[in-house]
């Protein structure tokens, strides 16, 4: 296997970081666990294979160590295939072959300088580096590709070590930036947000080693370090029959909290931002440790709104967070209400939000449903086609609630289904895909109300029977050597349990199987009129610039008074022209969103996640005037240059 043979795969590496958590019960990469630096994890090997293939980095002694640390156990292939259908062992094989072609004298040690010596004195020799190969593995997940800046990577274990690192950076007058699992950077760094989201040189503080995690079941809280991922916190909480309000499985909770306030389908009940946080320990730019609860600090929740409030780099490093957990009800059930159009789905979901029905409540798109639950992208595409063409299934109101509320939802819903149907759809997705354009589907599509026919009418049994499938059937189109593993995996109850999947959120990265995506949307009043205007404001630029755009999900806050909406742009981030077009669409979508009263685009929430939503989203901002929008254009040009340079 040569580097160029796997280049198509490695260039598409999305840096989701799921390979760092044991989300399938396989354990994780032993080399990554031992060394910590991204270079030793599967995502880093993918990045390095790309960087060497594209001649962006020269080999050093670290390359030998990285390559030799892999025992080809194949855990990464199982994990990565589950999410993105990629095989990181191919990248490892290519790196091995590349290494074999190099004469021994080609691998030179990297000389130490004063800064790396200082960092090593703080954290120990093995956790600080200025090695270009290790640094290259952080490209596209916190360092811009082809950046010429001088970087250092350091992995502290304690708050005191971070204080010392900040002081060292200040002494040498170089910037620094903390990194959780790099998931936000993985998306943002492909766009025009790359420049404001990262540093052009300096110290990357990789928080992976800071995994302190303590659940206090009495106060129903948890206190965590910045290396703890959503999956790890959720797992620890579940031991006590508790739930954390967390983002996607792979995201580090603190980074996500600080950056975005944690956006979930549970927000109508659990809230956003400080609704969930009790206290935070953080280090300011002078290296001083502070806490949100300190009496003498300036108001930590004061925040600005509007165009000039955009700040993608946090002003402090959060080193500890105490957050609320929530009790899991013993009779929680999942219920899904399909709709063929967004306005009807919004009406239904808003009514539930107003009545405080549903612990978790969201409107999901057909795109999310089909992409998330299908084991491969090809199946997802077929499922998406079938759902649109024959089933009229375009949106789903997705509810997790207690048994009493479930009855109310069933009474209110024109048609609904539960976990058994979801299980059938997951295990039968491959079979459903093979039924594309079948007579059964054509017959269903000719019905007056296909949704009712399939999910409530007499054909429901035929449909379920048609789907009746087993894990063995599901995995038959997967790579042969992985089929046994996946057959066992999909036999596990949690893999088809919608509540477990909502809690652990291991599926969203499947969005990245084919293409990169860019998160659009933001916060706004919960009324249907505003939401539809925003959807239009996001959809129109996608169409204008030839980008695939799709509604993602919407969740409410404060009993439907407010909502969060995600709409995604999908594009090929390896294609410069596609990147150019997505940047144009991003800017245009900002312009259009800011013209709507009360709308705060997501980027303008960044770095304000530890704030109170009352300071961020209220008061509802008036839409920008024509003159203000002209100034906005000037601001964009000042920040990013003329649009030809993006």
């Amino acid at each position, binding site marked *: 296997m040569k580097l160029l043979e796997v280049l198509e795969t490695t260039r598409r590496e999305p840096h989701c970081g799921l390979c760092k958590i044991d989300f399938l019960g396989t354990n994780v990469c032993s080399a990554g666990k031992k060394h910590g630096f991204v270079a030793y994890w599967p995502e880093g090997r993918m990045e390095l294979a790309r960087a060497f293939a594209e001649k962006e980095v020269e080999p050093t002694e670290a390359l030998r160590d990285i390559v030799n640390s892999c025992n080809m156990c194949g855990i990464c292939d199982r994990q990565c295939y589950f999410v993105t259908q990629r095989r990181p062992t191919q990248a490892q094989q290519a790196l091995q072959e590349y290494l074999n072609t190099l004469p021994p004298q080609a691998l030179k040690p990297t000389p130490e300088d004063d800064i790396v010596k200082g960092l090593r004195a703080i954290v120990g020799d093995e956790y600080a580096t200025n090695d270009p190969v290790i640094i290259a593995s952080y490209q596209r997940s916190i360092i811009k590709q082809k950046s010429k800046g001088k970087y250092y990577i350091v992995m502290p274990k304690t708050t005191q070590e971070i204080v010392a690192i900040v002081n060292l950076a200040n002494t040498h007058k170089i*910037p620094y930036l903390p990194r959780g699992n790099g998931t936000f950077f993985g998306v943002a760094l492909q766009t025009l947000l790359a420049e*404001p989201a990262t540093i052009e040189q300096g110290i990357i503080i990789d928080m992976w080693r800071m995994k302190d995690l303590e659940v206090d079941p009495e106060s129903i809280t948890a206190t965590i370090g910045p290396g703890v991922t959503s999956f790890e916190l959720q797992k620890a909480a579940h031991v006590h029959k508790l739930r954390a309000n967390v983002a996607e499985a792979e995201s580090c909770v603190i980074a996500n909290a600080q950056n975005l306030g944690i956006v979930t389908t549970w927000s109508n009940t659990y809230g956003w931002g400080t609704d969930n946080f009790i206290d935070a320990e953080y280090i300011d730019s002078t290296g001083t440790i502070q806490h949100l609860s300190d009496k003498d600090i300036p108001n930590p929740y004061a925040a600005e709104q*509007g165009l*000039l409030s955009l*700040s993608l780099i946090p002003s402090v490093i959060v080193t500890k967070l105490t957050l609320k957990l929530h009790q899991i009800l013993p009779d929680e059930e999942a219920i899904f209400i399909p709709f063929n159009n967004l306005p009807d789905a919004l009406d239904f979901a808003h009514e539930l939000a107003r009545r405080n029905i549903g612990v978790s409540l969201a409107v999901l798109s057909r795109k999310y449903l089909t992409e998330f639950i299908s084991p491969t992208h090809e199946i997802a595409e077929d499922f998406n086609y079938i759902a649109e063409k024959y089933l009229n299934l375009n949106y789903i109101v997705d509810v997790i609630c207690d048994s009493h509320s479930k009855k109310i939802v069933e009474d209110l819903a024109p048609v609904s289904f539960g976990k058994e149907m979801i299980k059938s759809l997951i295990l039968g997705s491959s079979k459903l895909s093979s039924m594309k354009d079948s007579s059964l589907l054509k017959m269903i599509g000719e019905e007056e109300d296909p949704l009712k026919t399939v999910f409530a009418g007499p054909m429901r049994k035929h449909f379920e029977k048609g789907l009746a499938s087993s894990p063995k059937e599901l995995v038959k189109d997967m790579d042969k050597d992985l089929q046994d593993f996946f057959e066992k995996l999909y036999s596990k109850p949690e893999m088809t349990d919608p509540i477990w999947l909502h809690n652990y959120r291991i599926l969203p990265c499947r969005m990245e199987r084919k293409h990169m995506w860019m998160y659009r949307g933001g916060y706004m009043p919960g009324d249907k009129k505003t939401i539809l205007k925003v959807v239009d404001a996001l959809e129109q630029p996608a169409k204008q610039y030839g980008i695939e755009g799709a509604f993602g999900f919407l969740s409410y806050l404060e009993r439907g008074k407010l909502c969060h909406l995600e709409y995604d742009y999908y594009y090929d981030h390896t294609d410069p022209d596609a990147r150019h077009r997505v940047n144009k669409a991003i800017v245009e979508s900002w312009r259009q969103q800011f013209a709507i009263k009360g709308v705060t685009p997501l980027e303008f929430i960044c770095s304000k996640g530890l704030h109170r939503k009352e300071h961020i989203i209220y008061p509802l901002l008036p839409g920008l005037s024509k003159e203000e929008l002209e100034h906005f254009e000037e601001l964009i040009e*000042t920040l990013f240059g003329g649009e030809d340079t993006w």
Partner: protein
Amino acid sequence: MVKFLSQEWAEQAKKKVLTELDKAKDLKNMNATLLNVIQNIPPDNKTIYYYIKFTEGNLDELITGTDESLKQKQADFIVTGDYTTFIQINNGQMSSAMALLKNRVKMTGNKMKALTITKPIDTYNNCVKGVPTEY
């Protein structure tokens, strides 16, 4: 070559702006006062104040110095940051708006008004960077 933020630099910068920039076209007839507080200047980490005042696009004042009285100047905007960041802004590596986004500088003042002067201030900075400067 003149030393960044020195008296000579300030004089040359002012002269360059007054001769090269058009009050209406380039500086949009802006009315604004801006005080930059530049911290941690080597070798002894002193602070220099860098004050500019525009009236109808005319650069009325460009003053630099360590004199604390400059700190008392009434300014619409106060921008505070490290010397290294202001070097990057002055030599064109980073716009002041980008420095704000990257949390390299802090700004106080009316943000909506700031929005209206973003472009002319950027034009001003681009002009000033043409002064041969040593740091």
